C-alpha cells in the first residue's frame, strides 16, 4: 500500500477526483481549467525508504476514508436490523398499504404508500416551481446581471441555504400560508375540475396543504439548484460564446446554442440534488402540513398529509417501544434508499459533464 502511494499515475487520478472536484460552490479559481496531471514529478521518484511518520500518517488518513465508507454501511445495517422486527410484525403490506397503525405492538399494521405519495407530491411541486426559476437565476447571474449585482446576489442566494429550515416552516405556516390563502382558494375553486386542484382531504382548510408546503420547499431548494447550475454555466467555453456573438446571435440565441447545451446535464443533476434535499426535508413540512383524519392522500395539491421525514419527526414520541420505533425506522430506511438513489443519479449526471 505504501509503495503504491508514491506512484501517482496521471491515469489513476481523474477517476477518483472527477466526481468530487465539482459539485461544490467554487471560488474564482475554478474558472481556470483544472490542472489535469497534478503532483506527478515527486511520484516518479520512488523514495528509498518509507518513514514511520509517513506510514502512520497514511494509515490514519486511509483509516478515515475507510471510516466514512463503513459509516454509510453501518447506517444501512443499523436501520435494517432495527426495522426487521417491526416489518415481521407488520400485518399488512409494508410497501402498498396506506394506513399507519403502530400503537399496539401486538397488532401492527403500517404501510408507506401514503407517505411515499405525499413525499413525492411535495417534492415534485417544489421541483416544478424551483427548476425554471433556478434556471432563470443561474442565467441571470452568469449572462445578464451586471457584475456588480451578480456577485453579492450569488452570495445572498447561498446565504438563503443557511437559513434554518424551522424558520422556513414557521414562516410558511404563520406568514406565507395566510397571505396566499385567497389565491389558493381561488385556484381550488376555479380549477377544482382538474384532479390535482380538487378539494383536498383537509378541506376546507387550504393552508396546511401540499400546495403551500411545495412552494415553501421550492424556496428552500432554490439556492442548491441555483448555485450548482450557475457554476456549470460559468464554465461554458468562452470561445463558443464569443463565436456565437460574432455570428450576430442575440443574447438569447447565445444561451440557447452554447450555454444551455453545455450546462444541460449540470442543470438536471443540480435539480436532482435539490430533489434529494426536498425528499428529506423534515421540520418545515412537519410544521406546515396538516394531517387528514380518516382520509388518504388522493393526488390533490390541496391535500394534507405527512412525508416520510415529517411523519418520523412528528411521532418521535412513539419511539420507545422498540417495535413501534422499528416501524418508523423502516420508513426512515426507505427514505434513506430513496435519497441514496436520487443523489447517486444526480452525481453521475453531474460527474459526467463537469470533470
Amino acid at each position, binding site marked *: 500500500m505504501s509503495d503504491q502511494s508514491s506512484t501517482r499515475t496521471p491515469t*489513476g487520478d481523474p477517476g*477518483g*477526483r472527477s466526481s468530487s*472536484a465539482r*459539485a461544490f460552490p467554487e471560488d474564482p479559481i475554478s474558472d481556470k481549467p483544472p490542472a489535469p496531471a*497534478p*503532483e506527478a*514529478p*515527486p511520484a516518479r521518484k520512488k*523514495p528509498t525508504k518509507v518513514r514511520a*511518520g*509517513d506510514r502512520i*500518517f*497514511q494509515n490514519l*488518513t486511509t*483509516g478515515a*476514508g475507510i*471510516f*466514512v*465508507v463503513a*459509516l454509510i454501511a453501518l*447506517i444501512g445495517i443499523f*436501520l435494517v436490523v*432495527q426495522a426487521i422486527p417491526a416489518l415481521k410484525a407488520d400485518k399488512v403490506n409494508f410497501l402498498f398499504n396506506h394506513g399507519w397503525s403502530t400503537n399496539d405492538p401486538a397488532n401492527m399494521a403500517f404501510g408507506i404508500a401514503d407517505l411515499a405519495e405525499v413525499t413525492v407530491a411535495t417534492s415534485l411541486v417544489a421541483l416544478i416551481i424551483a427548476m*425554471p426559476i433556478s434556471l432563470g437565476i443561474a442565467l*441571470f447571474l452568469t449572462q*445578464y446581471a451586471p457584475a456588480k449585482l451578480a456577485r453579492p446576489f450569488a452570495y445572498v*442566494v447561498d446565504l438563503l441555504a*443557511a437559513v*434554518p*429550515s*424551522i*424558520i*422556513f416552516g414557521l*414562516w410558511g405556516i404563520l*406568514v406565507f400560508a395566510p397571505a396566499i390563502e385567497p389565491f389558493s382558494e381561488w385556484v381550488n375553486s376555479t380549477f377544482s375540475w382538474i384532479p390535482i386542484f380538487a378539494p383536498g382531504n383537509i378541506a376546507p382548510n387550504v393552508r396546511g396543504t401540499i400546495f403551500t408546503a411545495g412552494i415553501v420547499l421550492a424556496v428552500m431548494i432554490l439556492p442548491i439548484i*441555483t448555485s450548482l447550475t450557475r457554476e456549470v454555466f460559468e464554465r461554458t467555453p468562452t470561445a463558443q*460564446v464569443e463565436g456565437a456573438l*460574432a*455570428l*450576430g446571435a*442575440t*443574447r*438569447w*440565441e447565445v444561451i440557447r446554442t452554447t450555454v444551455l447545451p453545455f450546462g444541460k446535464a449540470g442543470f438536471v443533476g443540480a435539480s436532482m440534488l435539490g430533489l434529494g434535499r426536498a*425528499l*428529506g*426535508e*423534515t*421540520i418545515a413540512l412537519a410544521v406546515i402540513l396538516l394531517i387528514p383524519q380518516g382520509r388518504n392522500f388522493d393526488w390533490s395539491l390541496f391535500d394534507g398529509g405527512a412525508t416520510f*421525514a415529517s411523519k418520523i419527526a412528528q411521532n*418521535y414520541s412513539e*419511539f420507545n417501544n422498540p417495535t413501534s*420505533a422499528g416501524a418508523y*425506522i423502516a420508513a*426512515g430506511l426507505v*427514505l434513506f434508499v430513496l*435519497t441514496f438513489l436520487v443523489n*447517486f443519479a444526480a*452525481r453521475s449526471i453531474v460527474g459526467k459533464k463537469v470533470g
Partner: protein
Amino acid sequence: MSTTLERPATTPAFQQVSAARKVKNGVATVLVWLSFLIAVVPLVWVLYTVIANGIKRIPYSNWWGQDFGSVLGDEVGGGVLHAIIGTLLQGVVCAVISVPIGLLVAIYLVEYGRGKLAKATTFMVDILSGVPSIVAALFIYALWVTTLGLPRSGFAVSLALVLLMIPVVVRSAEEMLRIVPDDLREASYALGVPKWKTIMKIVLPTALSGILGGIMMALARVMGETAPLLVLVGYTSYVNWNIFSGEQASLPLVMNNERATNSMDPGSVGFDRIWGAALTLVLIIAVINLLATVLSRIVAPKKK
C-alpha cells in the same frame, strides 16, 4: 467582454436581426429578470419576517443573559441563554469530532487516495452529504439509545450532526487542498521533507484559510438543524452545561417548543419568543459566517 462584441468593427453576416428573433430575445430577457425578482421576494420576505418580529425581545440584556426557567409561558421576560449555550455546545462538540475526521478524509483523497477505496470514499462522501437529517437522527437513535441503552442527551445530537457535517468539511477541505500548487509539495520533497510533514507543514497551512471558511460554513449549517434535536434530546427551560446528561435546550428547540405549547398569535409571548429565537439563531449564523471570512483573511498565506 460581450458588450464590445455586440457591436463588431466589421459588418457582420446578418445585418438585420429579424423581428421574431428580437421578440424571442426580449421574452427571454424578461423571463430571466422575472425569475430573479421572484427569487428575491421570498428571500426578503423571510428575512423581513424574522427581523421585524424578532427584534422586539432581542435588544434586552435579559434575553441574552437569562433562561426561561423562572418565567411562566405567558409571562414576558426571561431569555434564551440556555438555548444559546446548548446550540453552541452541541455545535462545537460536533465540530471537534467531525473536523479531524473530515480533514483526514480530505487529505486521504487528495494526497494518497487512488483505486477502489478512494473511489468508494468519494462516492460515500457524496451519499453522506445527501443523507436527510432525520435519517442521521434515526441512526444515532438506533445506535445510542436502542442498542447502547444510553439516555438521550446533547451529545447524541452532536453525534447526529457529525454525520451531517463530515461531508461538508471533506468537500471544502478537499477542494482547498487540490488547489495548493504542486510546486510547493515538490519543493518540500526536494528538500527531503517526508510526505506527512510536507502535508502538515506546507500543504495544510497553505490551504488553511479556505478550509477554515468551509468549516465555519458547515458549522453554521448544522446549528440550524432541528430534526435530530427532536429525536435525540429533550427540551429544558434551564441552562444545562452538561452535554452528556439531562435535557439541553437549543434555539431550534425553543422555537419548536413554543410552537407546540404556547400561543403563536402576533403580539403574544409565544410569538415574540419564536421569532426572537429565530432572529438570535440567524444572528449567530451570520456572526459565524463573518468569523469565517475574518479568520480566512487572518490565516491566508502572505503574499509578497
